[in-house]
């Protein structure tokens, strides 16, 4: 087990967590269209209670994604979170709002009123996927940061007490991450994730809620979410395979621009390309069959698995095959690669063994999910459940 293998392995684990996170954004997607999907107060409650039983998975996956990134690629954690401060803070802010919204909204004593918390859920449902999608897009589009490890021991900074100068990673402009939203391609990808989340959310609700009105409305809304998603996704995919990418020399660590780098990556790593294609087909199948069949409610599964495969393939394309996964637009050589940003071999190896627990964790999640969802949510259950949201 070489150091390079461990780096690649941990990029796979982080990518898998990222892919699962994008799939689990169906919670946000469904919340973003709860009004049109639920229509009545009772309908909205059904949608909220449906996503309310899964929101913690999304939240936990986001936290674990962050923790795994910290453990395996601490320089990314240091650079992206410390640099793109506002981008991450807004993401966190909306997720905090979401976390309390389920439990609080319909409780007596909620002096802010249920609509406030429903607004928070909708806000998180749009801003969460948009900004997380935008953050993922920066893996291909680049970010405006500089890294200089010697800053920490710069004699001038130490003598003058200029403590901001001792920071290793710095953002090259004052916007601290919001500049990413000025890049139209970041927005294209961000909105693709918004509509993907909405598509998955509708498919999830159709599967999870036993209510004919919601299911029939869902089929109609599905088209309205899936079409913009597909347009935006295909546009970005075409852009991605044609654009120059950030290649790294594995021996010297020097980073250079390479024409059509990501297309080269997909062709070189053909199994990843296969995963991408299978993923896209599954997403299309899940959407298409739900649209044409009035009795097919399981579209979330092929579309969800397809989403995981597609996002996994994209993230692997961003980091594997000697690619700088977090490119710097301010200084090419500051770009982060798996080799220059990862943890030590000892830590990666230790965490490699820890990662063996993941299948066990997934097994009990699947089992509990199955038990809770064995009976679909309906109006009677909401009325009789004293813990219903």
């Amino acid at each position, binding site marked *: 087990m070489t150091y390079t293998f461990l780096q690649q392995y941990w990029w796979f684990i982080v990518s898998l967590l990222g892919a699962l996170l994008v799939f689990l954004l169906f919670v946000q997607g469904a919340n973003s269209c709860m009004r049109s999907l639920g229509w009545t107060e009772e309908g909205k409650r059904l949608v909220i209670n449906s996503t309310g039983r899964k929101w913690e998975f999304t939240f936990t996956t986001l936290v674990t994604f962050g923790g795994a990134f910290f453990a395996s690629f601490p320089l990314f954690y240091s650079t992206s979170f410390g640099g793109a401060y506002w981008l991450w803070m807004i993401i966190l802010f909306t997720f905090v709002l979401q976390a309390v919204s389920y439990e609080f909204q319909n409780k007596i004593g909620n002096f802010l009123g249920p609509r406030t918390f429903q607004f928070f859920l909708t806000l998180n449902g749009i801003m969460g996927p948009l900004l997380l999608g935008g953050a993922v897009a920066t893996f291909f589009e680049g970010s405006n940061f500089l890294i200089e490890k010697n800053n920490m021991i710069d004699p001038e900074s130490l003598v003058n007490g200029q403590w*901001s100068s001792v920071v290793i990673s710095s953002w090259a402009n004052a916007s601290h991450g919001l500049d990413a939203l000025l890049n139209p391609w970041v927005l294209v990808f961000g909105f693709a994730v918004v509509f993907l989340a909405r598509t998955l959310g509708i498919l999830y609700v159709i599967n999870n809620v036993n209510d004919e009105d919601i299911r029939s409305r869902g089929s109609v809304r599905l088209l309205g979410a899936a079409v913009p998603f597909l347009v935006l996704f295909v546009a970005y995919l075409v852009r991605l395979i044609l654009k120059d990418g950030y290649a790294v020399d594995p021996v010297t660590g020097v980073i250079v621009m390479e024409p059509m780098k990501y297309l080269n990556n997909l062709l070189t790593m053909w199994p990843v390309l296969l995963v991408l294609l299978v993923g896209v087909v599954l997403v299309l199948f899940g959407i298409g069959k739900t649209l044409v069949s009035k009795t097919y409610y399981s579209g979330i599964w092929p579309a969800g698995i397809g989403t995981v495969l597609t996002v996994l393939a994209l993230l692997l394309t961003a980091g594997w095959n000697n690619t700088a996964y977090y490119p710097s637009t301010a200084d090419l050589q500051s770009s982060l690669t798996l080799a220059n940003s990862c943890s030590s071999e000892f830590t990666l190896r230790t965490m490699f063994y820890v990662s063996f627990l993941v299948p066990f964790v997934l097994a009990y999640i699947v089992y509990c999910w199955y038990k809770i969802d064995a009976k679909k949510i309906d109006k009677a259950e909401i009325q009789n459940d004293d813990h219903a949201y």
Partner: protein
Amino acid sequence: MQNILLNIDAGTIDWSRAQFALTAIYHWLFVPLTLGLALIMGIMETCYYRTKKRFWKDTAKFWQKLFGINFAMGVATGIILEFEFGTNWSNYSWFVGDIFGAPLAVEGILAFFMESTFVAVMFFGWNKVSRGFHLASTWLTGLGATISAWWILVANAWMQYPVGCEFNPDTMRNEMVSFFDVALSPFAVDKFCHTVISSWIIGAVFTVAVSCWYLMKRREQKLAVESIKIGAVVGLIAALGAAATGHKSAQSVGEVQPMKLAAMEALYHGGTDQGLTAVAWVNPCEQPDFLNESEAPLKIEIPYALSFMATNDIHGYVPGINDILNGYTRPDGTQEPSVDEKIERGKQAIATLAEYRKAKKEGADEATLATQLSLLKDNMKYFGYGYIKDKSEVVPNIPINFWAFRIMVGLGCLFILYFAIMLLLVFDIPFLSVLTRRLLATVGLLTETEADSSNITGLPNWHYWVPIVLLPLAYIASESGWLVAEFGRQPWTIQDMLPTWVAVSDLQSSSVIITFFLFLILFTTMLAVEINILLKQIKKGPQS
């Protein structure tokens, strides 16, 4: 002497500290209740599982409902804490991320998923899974929260006592060399035991306080009495356990963070046979003149108690602040260097590191690099001191440490007394219960009629007000413990390795000020909503 409030820097560093403190303090309002109630509702559901009585099911569900309202806020504030390591402490995240990131990742994989999966079964699975599976889910929710506490306290303990790592000059960071030294550090074990057990006190006080409110209102009396019984047992065990683990924690602090212990005690000059300060006048708003004063004014001490607390020996040596600043001889005869010497050696470490990196970049020969590495290794222990300009910077805030420690210990003793009395009142323990009632009657806290009865319902209302008043005090005690732990570590983010001002992110203070106030408004509003919902839910009762 310097005024503490006037000494706060309006720059990024202190605002980042304030933001982290704000988030941590709010987070800690919710976590101990989660840990404490998890245990209590687990016991209640076990009673239901064993007896199959509807009463226990309703009781367990009632406390689980209150648990759920509190749980959401703990989750919400927790996510901010994790990401703030990156957003506000960028240098820190690289400098020690190789070690610090691992416990956070393990926490996510092992604890958070367990919590989030089984809490959903606990809330929504009553009619969907078997009684046994549901009971297991309730306990696993609590276990997940406790495992989460373990890993985050491992991470925190490592910041107080960095072990299992080595500095790598090529990567400019500390790297883990022993996972087990980090994960099973004795400091982490002490911290975990003390923190989690003391959290059970809050769960117990909360349970008894809510139950006493019902007794005051003469309603839900069976639920209240049975809940008080469980709360009193858990509370007394926890309060005694917190005292025992607190003693062990203090010893750990004495060994690895002597400056923190000296600040907690306002001990300016140490020595052998040291007494524990019971009372002294330490101005809460001013850092005392520890260089020139011999001791804090109006000091009344418990003889030998500090030496015993810190070393398990009543004659043990405890260094004071000036001893640590000027250097001292340890009981084993070895010499602890002065802070000035540490600063010099720290500066030499930084300079050598800079030379080494420059030489390596320029392709210097192996012998030159080896010499520089050897010099660096000799001084690396004091690396963090190289960023210190004056020795007074390594003295933490004495008033906060001094008073927070006393509040925590004082209230801890009060809880032992309260739960012991409560236990003897609700359980009919031969001789002891009668003796307690007689004693309370003698001092006028019970009437003769009340003392003759073993029934705790129908007592005058002031009896029921006591735990309600104790509830905020339990939170104050718990937060005070964290104030000691974190203020006592200052100026270090990682003890002796990295001061706060080198750990920060490159941010404008205005950005941090805005997010600070955003979070302050958000958390305060949500806390107000939560308290209001909890109060209404309690008023509504289990028959909802």
